[in-house]
């Protein structure tokens, strides 16, 4: 990461500050930005996948049982999934320290 964010000497920067490691955005921990966290109630969940469709950060993926689970490394806590869930299965809860 340090290489791409520039915490290095000017002499070591790529020509024109180009990024030469493709897809390195996946290393960026946007989960740090979150103050509210989405929690899914599996009793209510119908596995419809609306949370997966609407999530702007591709946080959701399908597990073996067909439920959509969050990857909190990336989830910014925007709450779109909770808003869009047709059965109100997702609740935004305060992060605790």
């Amino acid at each position, binding site marked *: 990461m340090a290489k791409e*964010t*520039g*915490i*290095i*000497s*000017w*002499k070591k*920067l*790529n*020509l*024109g*500050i*180009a*990024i*030469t490691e*493709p*897809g390195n955005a996946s290393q960026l921990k946007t989960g740090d930005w979150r103050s509210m966290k989405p929690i899914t109630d599996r009793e209510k969940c119908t596995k419809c996948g609306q949370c997966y469709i609407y999530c702007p950060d591709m946080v959701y993926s399908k597990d073996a049982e067909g439920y959509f689970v969050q990857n909190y490394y990336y989830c910014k806590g925007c709450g779109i999934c909770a808003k869009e869930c047709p059965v109100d299965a997702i609740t935004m809860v305060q992060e605790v320290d």
Partner: protein
Amino acid sequence: MSKRIGVEVSIAAAEAVGLCDVDVIAAYPITPQTHIVEHLSEMVAEGHLDAEFIPVESEHSAMSCCIGSSAAGARTFTSTSSQGYALMSEICFIASSMRLPIVMAVANRALSAPISIWNDHADLMYSRDSGWIQTIGENGQEVVDLLIHAFKVAEDHRVMLPVTVNLDGFTLSHVIEPIMLPDKAEVAAYLPRYKAPLRLDPKNPVSFGPVGMPDVYTEARKAQDEALKAAKPVIIEAWKEFGDKFGRYYKPVETYKAEDAETIIITMGSISETAATAIDHLREQGKKVGLVRIRLWRPFPGTELVEAIKGAKNIAVLDRVCSFNGGEISGPVCLEVKSLLFDRGMNPKVMNFIAGLGGRDVTVQNFEEMVEKASNGAAPTPYEIINVRE
């Protein structure tokens, strides 16, 4: 073999770009640059030049297109002038920061208002800090040679910066004169195919032009600043190689009868020829006067300029632009000369003339008067606009 032909300088410039086997030209026409891109589009349309000519809807798009093409590894050329250069300027800064070796011919023209299609250096001065290497031609031959040199320098992996070749609009761009045009094989021997050190390639993905947070921006700027500094020896080396191949040698700063001169006038561009004739006349009268011409504007050739003017007691600097600074300091070229002298503890009398705005002719007699005035140390500071009706 090179051949000597009579040709309009704009057409010769286009031919020179063709000789460089350019891959992509993206341009929008504007007076007085028009003949350059018209001729290139003709060459492409008639199959004389195997290149993409992309007619765009503005200069902003022209430079954007050039950035894409250069980033993909193509040898890329454009040309503009004045208002078009101003519209393009947002993207010009990006081209240099992204280290893309685009070459551009600028037919120097005044900025509006009032609308003026005629020559001065307003566009040249206003783009000064865009991070491009900038050279200025004195005559048609030099424009041709500087264009070929521009690709050589820009694409050198030690440089990787865009280059403008400036030529005075109309007073140079629209003049027919004799020019030695090299042949394609000679140019190819001097200028090998461009190999981009880093390029947009689906097999090897890279991102150009990312966000630079405060923790990297200073380093990015430092790296670019160092690149322009490091370009100077490469520029000089490429001129040496050009001279060895084509027999015409160039330097960052040109001197004319300046060696023993007590008074020196500093000029840029085609007007320098007129100045040289004035120097001849004054020398015939036994006056110790000389001419120094700046050919390389960025990177600024400080060492070479000091060397050229160090013996003079009086220095007159000609600016071709009104820089609207409030009148307590000099015009742009003069400021740079003064800064240079101050840092080196040198203290000749430096005077600043502003002339040749928006196509106003600067005659041999005008030059004689300026140089005479400077010899007497009589020119007012910080500057004087000459040839203005009261």
